[in-house]
């Protein structure tokens, strides 16, 4: 069952009323009660459509973080075959917030790496809510390096609130690990394609998403800081997250205009969580398209192209 977000409450109410009416009709066909119920269904659908046609940046944050939104593992399960997870940073641990390994996209062998948030209490704790520690970035570096040596394209799926703020993470060089991962992204002589499927949280996202092509799901976000964090620093009030979300320009649409996002992948009506299979398939189609665009490029062209993309950023701002 779909969990409703706060701003979707009116839809939930209409749908609940329709359910009630159907229960009242108790299976009798053609009654006025049933007719009323289907009118309510139509009303709910219209409302969903109009709400999602114009989501505010803050509402997009809520959709991007929706607990039922498809996560990295869902994408890997549905889009890839022969997924063979590879674990560990060969140094300290295996970070379960980052999953990755060899897999085939259609017939093409690739290296797929992503943040995984988990989908219930147990898996969320195991995955540390998608907040990687240095080991996660170092595992990613290891896998990217391997992909580079064996000529496999790298696909990263980005979905993290940010890197984990922990004591051990700091002691083991969280910032160095992120910096090296970004550096590895830039070094690759193979195509690197990144899709922001949910939250692109700050440096933790940059470490995976410094790519030749960056796609974003329609309601995903990518930001220098969470709206709550920004609000508490600049507004001195964490409750001003709506204003902060607006000011930060963190939507896929804003990032497309700024040239950071190369492609927006449309989500099913009402967000990816309302039809995960359709959302995942749309990402699959986008991935294949971007891979074939880069298919003929040699290592130097890929490296230079990535460099150019990032060096040129900021040469134009948003339209007034």
């Amino acid at each position: 069952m779909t969990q409703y977000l706060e701003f979707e409450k009116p839809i939930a109410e209409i749908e609940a009323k329709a359910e009630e009416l159907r229960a009242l009709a108790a299976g009798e066909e053609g009654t006025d009660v049933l007719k009323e119920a289907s009118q309510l269904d139509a009303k709910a659908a219209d409302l969903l459509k109009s709400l999602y046609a114009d989501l505010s940046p803050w509402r997009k944050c809520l959709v991007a973080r929706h607990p039922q939104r498809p996560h990295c593992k869902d994408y890997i399960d549905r889009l890839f075959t022969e997924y063979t997870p590879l674990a560990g940073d060969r140094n300290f641990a295996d970070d379960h917030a980052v999953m990755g390994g060899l897999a085939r996209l259609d017939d093409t062998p690739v290296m797929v790496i992503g943040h995984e948030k988990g989908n219930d209490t147990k898996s969320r704790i195991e995955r540390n809510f998608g907040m990687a520690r240095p080991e996660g970035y170092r595992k990613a570096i290891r896998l990217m390096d391997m992909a580079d040596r064996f000529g496999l394209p790298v696909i990263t799926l980005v979905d993290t609130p940010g890197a984990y703020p922990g004591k051990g993470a700091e002691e083991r060089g969280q910032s160095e690990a992120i910096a090296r991962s970004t550096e590895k992204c830039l070094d690759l002589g193979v195509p690197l394609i990144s899709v922001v499927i949910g939250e692109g949280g700050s440096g933790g996202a940059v470490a995976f998403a410094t790519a030749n092509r960056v796609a974003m799901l329609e309601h995903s976000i990518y930001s220098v800081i969470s709206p709550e964090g920004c609000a508490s620093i600049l507004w001195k009030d964490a409750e001003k997250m709506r204003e902060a979300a607006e000011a930060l320009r963190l939507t896929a649409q804003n990032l497309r205009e700024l040239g950071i996002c190369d492609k927006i992948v449309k989500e099913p009506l009402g967000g990816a969580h309302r039809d995960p299979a359709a959302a995942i398939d749309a990402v699959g189609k986008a991935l294949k398209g971007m891979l074939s665009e880069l298919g003929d490029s040699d290592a130097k062209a890929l490296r230079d192209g990535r460099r150019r993309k990032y060096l040129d950023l900021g040469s134009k701002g948003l339209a007034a």
Partner: protein
Amino acid sequence: MNWINNYVRPKINSLFSRREVPENLWTKCDECGTMLFHRELAHNLNVCTNCDHHMPIRARERLASLFDGGAFTEVPVPEPVADPLHFRDQKKYTDRLKDARRKTGERDAMLVAEGEIRRTPAIVAVQDFSFMGGSMSMYVGNAIVAAATRAVERKLPLVLFSAAGGARMQEGILGLMQMPRTTIAVQMLKEAGLPYIVVLTHPTTGGVTASYAMLGDVQIAEPNALIGFAGARVIEQTIGEKLPEGFQRAEYLLDHGMLDRVTSRIDLADELATIIRMLTGQPAPVKGDLPPPEEPTEIGPAMPPEVPEEPEAAQTK
């Protein structure tokens, strides 16, 4: 542009901004409370003569203290698009920028210069914490790319002094994108086989540590500098426990293998020259303060250090 015009002579008086002098001739050490005479403190590069506490030093003063005779040439930095996101919190970003420019007399949070350290030519980039917390803006990114580009052109090492709370929030995602941009600058140096030395100063945190400030061939920090990715308060809230004494301080990072050295500001110029000269196969340096170089090596086309009031939006390359 005349080389002489670009000289910045470190008159001891000018080591302190005009606002603070001369009404108040004494400064109290934040650490030990000793009252320190300005002239003496400035001469000691803002390091307490009693307890060695390193107080903040402005970017321009840092450059003057580092280069022989205080002489250096600024490397021009391409001006980015102003306020690309039309950002406004309680205040407009453009107003915050204006305030910071008025307060500091600088264009943004990073200065880049070319000069000689103990007769060792180098490019030096210094982040200015007093300009909006040193935050990593598009300008800062441009400065680092310009520094690396100049270093490659002139086959010189790059020394970078970091100081920042992180990326500039008012530039949103474009602030964050300086992480990959500055990483590209570091790669340019690596490919050219040029040394890149980072000196982490108090405080260096967030996206700055997670990019150019942690990618040096040699990582040096000033004593007791706060260096980390996440803020201590956020960590304490997350893990629900108190952090140990000295957590995220330079000496703590040194113990955890994240730095090569912790070096007093007083010894930095000698140390930088020593390291650079070994890495680049030059004979040992002459140590101690030196007069400016007599024969300036050809200086490329320099931009005047004064920046126009309302610059044209320039594109970065």
